[in-house]
């Protein structure tokens, strides 16, 4: 197992990753940047100028959009981190802890757009919550005139982001906790007289945080630049910056493309600024934390905070689950007038007519999802196997390379990438969409697969080599079957990420590729909740089904193999 063996493999993988992943992002950013400074030959703009920026700052609402983006992004990320931390601290030692990640599955699998639509159905003035407490508690016989969705403050958007991000951070945090001797350290701290919750925050959190820092940045970057969820839940006039950029790009007035590119570049700066701000806050928090730890307070009083945090987390999960149920109910509703708590009439009419549009969107989504996932999983296996054969640890730059597509806001390079694809004649087809989605699916597959892959007992591989098995046989006959469960879990995550993609499909599909997500987002502004419900349910069920398959397939294949039936997923 010497270095030379894997050299070609590593070279090939590096070529694919730089050519297929990094280069598109960089050229996309470059083209966006050129357009932002007046160069876009396709519409006859060929001179460098600051005019796009001047135009941008005269566009109505630009200042509010910027502020809204920063506020919703930073607030939701900070709150999500606080809630996830409090919940982790509160549930530690509880016997059900290891099941938490399974319970989180549906919320993690459901795409942002589906959850956002469900939450809108839930909290709208005419939503399920209002229906359930009306008229007996509120006296409402008509939906009240309160802006609970698309509110000017962006509170509904923050709520939606929390429902999605708290479970994600919880999962990441629970994974990181596995790498720390939590119990021993908790015992040591408690023996010194510190309360349960306080010792978690003073001792465990400072060790966990560095391990989850990159995922936190991913959440922050996402929250600062989200589009689909912001269209559905966020303020509409003015919207957050990313939505404004998308609108300008797709506006009938093509002269808006140049200022839109300037705004897309500004969006990248917003994310960079947000991350910088976060890093400064980390420094302050670390200093304050040290001061707090040195004071030596045993802090029994931290208890209520943890209870509050875990209560809020449970409410969020309940909201998410109710949102999904609400979607399902709407999809089979015939008549549901306010303020009835449940529909008065049921119908499976829309479900019976796939030809009305959801059938083809379902097939498109599945085909794109399966292809993208297959590409991403194969590339991830090739990458990890290359690392194995070289016998090397992953370099820091490689780790950043993997995270790059998740840290750079999509809107900042997708238009530019589209320009490149147009020039190459690649745009508007399924292939372009698959390529663009793979940029975001690959990192998640890589992140999901890396830890279980490294956790595989190396000596099993040595044992098979000692029996005469060459590199290929070791991979196919030993590693992959043993890693079947994490492989399928990673594939399910990749598939869910693909189903959830909105902007890549929108930009690269040039309006010709309609997936469940693009259709659901378009329909969400319409009035027929029943049709929207069908799309959103399908959108949520498709990834969920894959998760369930990823859970049961290995259990079935390895049903007579006790050594593999437990194990980390």
């Amino acid at each position, binding site marked *: *197992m*010497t*270095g030379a*063996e894997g050299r070609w493999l590593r070279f090939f993988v590096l070529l694919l990753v730089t050519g297929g992943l990094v280069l598109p992002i960089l050229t996309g950013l470059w083209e966006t940047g050129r357009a932002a400074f007046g160069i876009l030959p396709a519409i006859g703009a060929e001179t460098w100028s600051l005019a796009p920026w001047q135009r941008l700052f005269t566009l109505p609402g630009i200042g509010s959009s910027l502020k809204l983006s920063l506020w919703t992004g930073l607030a939701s990320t900070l709150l999500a981190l606080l809630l996830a931390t409090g919940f982790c601290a509160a549930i530690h030692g509880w016997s059900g802890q290891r099941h938490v990640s399974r319970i989180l599955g549906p919320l993690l699998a459901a795409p942002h757009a589906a959850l956002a639509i469900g939450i809108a159905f839930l909290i709208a003035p005419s939503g399920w919550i209002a229906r359930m407490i009306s008229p007996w508690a509120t006296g409402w016989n008509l939906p009240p005139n309160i802006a609970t969705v698309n509110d000017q403050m962006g509170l509904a958007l923050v709520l939606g982001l929390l429902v999605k991000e708290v479970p994600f951070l919880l999962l990441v945090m629970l994974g990181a906790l596995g790498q720390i001797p939590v119990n021993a350290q908790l015992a040591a701290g408690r023996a010194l007289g510190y309360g349960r919750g306080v010792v978690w925050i003073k001792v465990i959190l400072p060790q966990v945080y560095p391990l989850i820092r990159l995922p936190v940045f991913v959440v922050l970057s996402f929250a600062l630049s989200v589009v689909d969820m912001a269209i559905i839940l966020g303020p509409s006039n003015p919207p957050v910056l990313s939505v404004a950029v998308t609108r300008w790009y797709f506006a009938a007035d093509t002269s808006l493309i140049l200022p839109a590119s300037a705004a897309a570049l500004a969006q990248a700066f917003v994310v960079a600024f947000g991350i910088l701000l976060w890093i400064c806050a980390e420094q302050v928090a670390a200093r304050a934390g040290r001061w707090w730890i040195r004071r030596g307070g045993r802090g029994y009083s931290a208890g209520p905070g943890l209870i509050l945090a875990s209560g809020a987390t449970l409410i969020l999960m309940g909201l998410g689950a109710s949102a999904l149920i609400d979607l399902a109910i709407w999809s089979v509703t015939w008549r549901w007038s306010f303020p009835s708590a449940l529909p008065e009439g049921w119908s499976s009419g829309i479900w019976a007519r796939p030809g009305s549009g959801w059938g083809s969107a379902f097939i498109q989504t599945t085909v794109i999802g399966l292809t993208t996932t297959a590409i991403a999983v194969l590339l991830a296996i090739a990458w990890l196997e290359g690392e194995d054969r*070289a*016998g*090397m640890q992953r370099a820091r730059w490689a780790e950043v390379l993997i995270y790059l597509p998740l840290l750079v806001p999509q809107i900042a390079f997708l238009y530019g990438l589209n320009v490149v694809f147009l020039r190459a004649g690649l745009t508007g087809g399924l292939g372009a969409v698959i390529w663009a989605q793979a940029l975001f699916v690959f990192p998640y597959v890589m992140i999901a697969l890396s830890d279980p892959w490294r956790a595989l*007992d190396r*000596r*099993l591989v*040595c*044992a*098979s*080599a*000692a*029996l*005469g*098995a*060459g*590199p290929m046989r*070791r991979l196919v*006959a*030993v590693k992959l*079957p*043993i890693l*079947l469960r994490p492989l399928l879990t990673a594939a399910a995550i990749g598939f869910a990420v693909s189903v959830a993609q909105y902007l890549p499909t929108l930009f690269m599909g040039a309006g010709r590729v309609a997936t469940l997500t693009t259709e659901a987002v378009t329909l969400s502004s319409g009035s027929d909740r029943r049709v929207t419900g069908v799309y959103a349910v399908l959108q949520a069920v498709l990834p969920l089904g894959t998760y369930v398959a990823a859970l049961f397939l290995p259990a079935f294949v*390895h049903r*007579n*193999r*006790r*050594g*593999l039936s437990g194990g980390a997923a």
Partner: protein
Amino acid sequence: MNTLALSDVEIRRHGASGPLFAPLSLIVPAGTITTVMGPSGIGKSTLIDFIGGHLGSGFVATGKIMLNGLDVTHVRAENRRIGILFQDELLFPHLSVGDNLAFGLAARHHGRAARRRAVDAALEQAGLAGFHDRDPATLSGGQRARVALMRALLAEPRALLLDEPFAKLDAELRTEIRSFVFSHIRARGVPVLLVSHDASDADAAAGPVVAM
């Protein structure tokens, strides 16, 4: 003629100044079990890894490994034909007991029926007839040890390395498994190198003893 020879083998951790142990040269003739003794942590397992071709990238080794007169120092692990019994049995958890043996069985046995016969014969020798379809995770410690030995032998190794394979067994089982392993490998007439920190292993091996 059949010998495993080490000359001036030295292994150091990457970046460390000194080697793990003093330069080691020894000749292991066929049919004998040579024991290398040394305290825990001196690098016995690392030595085994080096001879077998499994040395991790964190180590740098010098010296030569000769097998039957050929220099195999830079031959790939899977082409050295040096079998290893590790401290753990390392049966593949996804394969049945029989398929674990079939994984080891040399490729020169052709045909499904012939391969199955060879596997069944090995199971019989190990006192495990009828265990072909069993899940390795359901075997007892002694049964797993015997399967691991049979798997190593079916690969028809030209030399065998034993990395304290009895260290984790309790006293009674230890004696039984040790005599089972030793009698089977003596019958093969290949050079065998055993590393151990336990003098009773060296006594039972009844061969030359080298101190590290």
